[in-house]
């Protein structure tokens, strides 16, 4: 039996919500970052599912570029965490207040 595309979309929605919850509540900066990667992955799954449904390759191209951008984002973000850790000795997002008034 073939699986309807809707199930993939629902799974992506659930994954995105789980990632959003983690990104909003986790305290460790690394864990927030991991949750954001989870959300990104869910968005990619949606794009591929719609690409399959509509028989259009554009979704796959978008996912390809999203993966490349995710690699750049991870490199810069983790470098920022290393820099913050050098300065503050913590990556607890609750204690990063450099740009708070």
């Amino acid at each position, binding site marked *: 039996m073939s699986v309807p595309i809707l199930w993939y979309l629902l799974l992506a929605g659930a994954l*995105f919500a789980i990632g959003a919850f983690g990104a909003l509540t986790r305290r*460790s900066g*690394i*864990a927030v970052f991991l949750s954001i990667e989870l959300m990104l992955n869910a968005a990619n*799954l949606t794009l591929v599912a719609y690409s*399959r449904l509509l028989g259009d390759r554009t979704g796959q191209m978008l996912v390809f570029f999203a993966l490349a951008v995710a690699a750049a984002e991870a*490199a810069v973000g983790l470098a920022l965490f290393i820099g913050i850790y*050098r300065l503050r000795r913590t990556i607890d997002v609750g204690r990063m207040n450099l740009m708070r008034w």
Partner: protein
Amino acid sequence: MELAIFVLLAGTALGSAILVVFHRNPVSSTMSLVVTLVATAGLFLMLGSPFLAALQILLYTGAILVLFLFVIMLLNVRRERTIHSRAPGLTWGAAICSAIFAGATMRLFWAAYATAPTPPLDAEAFSLRAVARELFSTYLLPFEIIGLLLLVAVVAASWIAKRPGPGEPGEVP
């Protein structure tokens, strides 16, 4: 058969996603994310894009998450005593917001054309050859720009993460 594989992969992805969010040890969180991403790569394969499935495993689990593990070990992040925010109101608010968002998104996805049986896979249009041809013709300029972006990101990352010199903020005494 296909349904069984889907349920298996989806269950793995969901379960390990929950572990990512609720595990205290950041290394275990990262390994759970690896499981989620590999399961998603399997779903990509089922959706007829083996190229993206391979890329997902090579790039995400092979490069990005190894970078995460390196940074976690470099920073020697301790287990968090309380994994979530100190304010319980924030946790509940985030849970409610996520649930509302999930409900709204799923309602949005619930269209008639998505519940209909999937059209047969157009093997010609989704073949690796066709994808590569489109990538290097229609999307050639974005492809080159992505290469430039990655170069810039690598240079920026190595500059940001370098050991600060004497007199600069963050100097290790």
